[in-house]
């Protein structure tokens, strides 16, 4: 009796699987740390695709939740201290010191001011270091102005607000951010292709 040694040819199957792996590798986006899924963006037909050139700039993401709280990314200062590791600016936990009896709204507002000032100072320190100047806090006059301008030019503020967030909260956040010195702003929306 003759024993058959017929085996399936696995090479085409391997080809196909590798093709699929390549496709998924190419289309997968791992950079999701700034894009919390909880924030459902509004739809807009005029929203344009994000250009690669923007990645060269510093980007400050303002992820505004439905209730007006803000999710933020932690940031490291020049001496290696990691700030805002909890990743949230809300009206419950004072960032700086305990405000006895302060309302949630007041705590949120003071937290926002502290956050924007801190981020601005950290970015300004980076710019001053690149220019081989002393730390930002020690700069005065035209040097300080030059660093402020550089920070404003190089930083894009990206507003990612939940579609059900109130305009009052969004406007409050934007103006506080603007008062600190950030001026390049963009709104993010889901591209509606209908």
């Amino acid at each position, binding site marked *: 009796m003759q024993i058959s040694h017929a085996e399936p040819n*696995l090479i085409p*199957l*391997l080809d196909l*699987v*590798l093709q*699929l*792996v390549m496709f*998924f*590798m190419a*289309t*997968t*986006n791992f950079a999701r740390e700034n*894009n919390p899924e909880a924030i459902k*963006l*509004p*739809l*807009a*037909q*005029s*929203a*344009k*695709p*994000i250009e690669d050139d923007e990645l060269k700039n510093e980007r400050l993401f303002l992820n*505004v939740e439905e209730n007006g709280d803000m999710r933020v990314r932690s940031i490291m200062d020049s001496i290696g201290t990691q700030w805002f590791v909890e990743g949230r600016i809300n009206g419950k936990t004072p960032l700086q010191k305990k405000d006895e009896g302060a309302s949630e709204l*007041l705590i949120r*507002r003071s937290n926002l001011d502290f956050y924007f000032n801190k981020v601005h100072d950290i970015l300004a320190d980076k710019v001053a270091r690149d220019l081989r100047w002393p730390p930002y806090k020690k700069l005065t006059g035209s040097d300080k*102005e030059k660093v*402020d*301008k550089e920070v*404003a030019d190089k930083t894009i503020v*990206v*507003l990612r*607000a*939940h*579609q*059900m*967030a*109130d*305009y*009052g*909260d*969004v*406007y*409050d956040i*934007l*103006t*506080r951010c*603007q008062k600190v*010195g*950030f*001026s390049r*702003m*963009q*709104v*993010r*929306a*889901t*591209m*509606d*292709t209908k």
Partner: protein
Amino acid sequence: MSRREKDPQLETDLGRVIVPMLDMSFQLLFFFVAIFNPGKAEGKMALNLPATGQAKAKDLQNVDPKTISDANLEVPSDFVVVVSSHEDSFGVSIKDADKADKVGEVRGITPQNRREEIGKLLDTLREKLAERYKAKQEKEGLKVTDNVKIEANKKTKHADLVAVMDACLRAGYTQVGFAPPPDFQQQ
């Protein structure tokens, strides 16, 4: 042995290599399928906000009267699109120096028909804005400015505001900014 004849030893070796490779490929495939998210793409819309305030002059002789002061950071605009949004109603009007032109108002909105009803009203707004832009372009030619500001009450939902912004951008205006809500006080 001719070249065309198969070498059984070689075939066995190839078979041994392919099976673990296929295993690994399936593992990779499973990983990428699991994390794949074919959601709608995120896009950007430029927001027109003024630059930070100019530095103050060190002495009186250096004061530049053309420079915008810190206290006056409002962006000049051709007109203001005023939005009045509430739970069950939504109204839009266009306000310029001379008069306010009411575009329309929808009442009795429910969460189910909100997007559709507001969408219809915003189509009308877009047509009116496009007419204004065209008329201005004919009058001013290439020098035409295209600044629009949107003013909305503070309880307006961000989705509605972005829909109004979208209508302005689609009408041809490129610089759209936000005006402070009339019922808003910053502390």
